[in-house]
């Protein structure tokens, strides 16, 4: 399981990468492994406001379906459209090609509530 140290994580297995006043969001390597082969992703429209801890989309794997939770509050400014034709990118490259949405970060203080890499590793370790 790969868990980059520079990212922050939710207990629901999203990662977030802060880039200035914006953030990239995806799901973790652990999550993609648990889900298995991913076949569809439903992402919000650009411009939509998302709120920390609330559902912003869904991810369908062959076997199961899972909600996606916003790690921080903000407005969606871009979605990864290549996932429509290549949802397998989430399995192959969860932290890079498999990114899902880019959002504005309305309240940087919300980042404090997220887990760091070690905290996330402990969290998924405890989940086993």
């Amino acid at each position, binding site marked *: 399981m790969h868990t980059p140290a520079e990212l922050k994580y939710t207990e629901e297995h999203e990662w977030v990468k802060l880039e200035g006043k914006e953030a990239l969001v995806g799901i973790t390597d652990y999550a993609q492994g*648990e889900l*298995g082969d991913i*076949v569809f992703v*439903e992402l919000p429209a650009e411009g939509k406001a998302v709120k920390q801890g609330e559902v912003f989309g869904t991810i*369908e794997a*062959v*076997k199961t*379906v899972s909600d996606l939770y916003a790690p921080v509050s903000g407005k969606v400014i871009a979605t990864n459209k290549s996932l429509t034709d290549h949802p397998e990118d989430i399995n192959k490259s969860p932290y890079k090609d498999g990114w899902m949405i880019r959002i504005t970060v309305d309240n940087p203080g919300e980042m404090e509530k997220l887990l760091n890499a070690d905290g996330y590793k402990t969290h*998924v370790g405890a989940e*086993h």
Partner: protein
Amino acid sequence: MSGATGNEKKTALYDKHVALGARMVPFAGYMMPLSYSGQISEHKAVRNKVGIFDLSHMGEFIISGPGAIEAVDHLLTNRLVGAKPFQAVYSPMCLDNGGIVDDLIAYNLPDGVYLVVNASNIDKDARWIQEHLPAGVNFGNISDHTSLIAIQGPATLEFLAPLMDQPIAHLRTYTSVRAQVAGVDALVSRTGYTGEDGYELYVANAHAPELWDRLMELGQNIGLTPIGLAARDTLRFEMGYCLYGNDIDETTTPLESGLTWTVKLEKGDFVGRNALIEQNHRGVPRRLVGLRPDGERSIPRHGNPLRIGDRQVGHVTSGTFAPSLGMGLGMGYVESDLSRPRTQVTIDVRGKDVLAAVTVLPFYAYGSRPGRRKA
């Protein structure tokens, strides 16, 4: 997330799966490989080429002694009496009320009737069968000593035939032979759960690891791929084969679940016959059907309610993305009046209404399996 209790059994091939990097999960009391390289690629390997499965979690019983065939026949809806030596019969085994205790394969072997049952039902079936056997008929549970390796896919014969000590190409589906595979004694059966041509190899646990190693080595050139339970499920699903615990259980009868062809009401008395005669006479209240959503990006899931307008008319029992068809599909029960193909129903997929059409099974009709259906 994995839900293992630590008390799960390991098959004789457990170490092989771990060495191959399989994702191991608890299933029916065993730690089993869910997938190796990825479930979609494994699924396609079986549809296009050939795959190898460890199915050693399945249960095996031997019923022997005078009258064993008749005694087992009395527990099955299908006809075992009259089966030729080494012939296999697929059958539900029913409660008195017609509900399905389990679905199984029965082989007429020289040393007795060999039953292959679902792993999750081994203990229940053993009790049920022993309760119903007459004195003088013996029951043996050899599940813990028996391994099952399946080879499935259109290239199965091309791969397997050169490794056998005798010809197997002439075997019809649902027949078997005792033979050596790569030097290992096995019961070799032309059966499977994938819709493709294939053979299932029953061997003693002691020989399973060496057989697995030889098959994996000899299969390299042809592209033999290890297949986990996840792909096994999508392969059987595309064929509309019932999965016990999802599509059939003690609350469903074979007449409701598309298994009418396995119910031989005219064969004489068997457990559940009266209830099935009565249901057949009164009319089957619901039927298992295929469900094809209008939108390609909706995937029905187990438990989703089926509605017409505001009225619930059934539920989804199996639903998944079908890799060979590239879309989500479902199987489920609907009231019999609504079971005709092209009937429109609404699937409640996590609160979202998805229009779907009732469709005939199997979903996937292009498999390499000889013959038309499961028996």
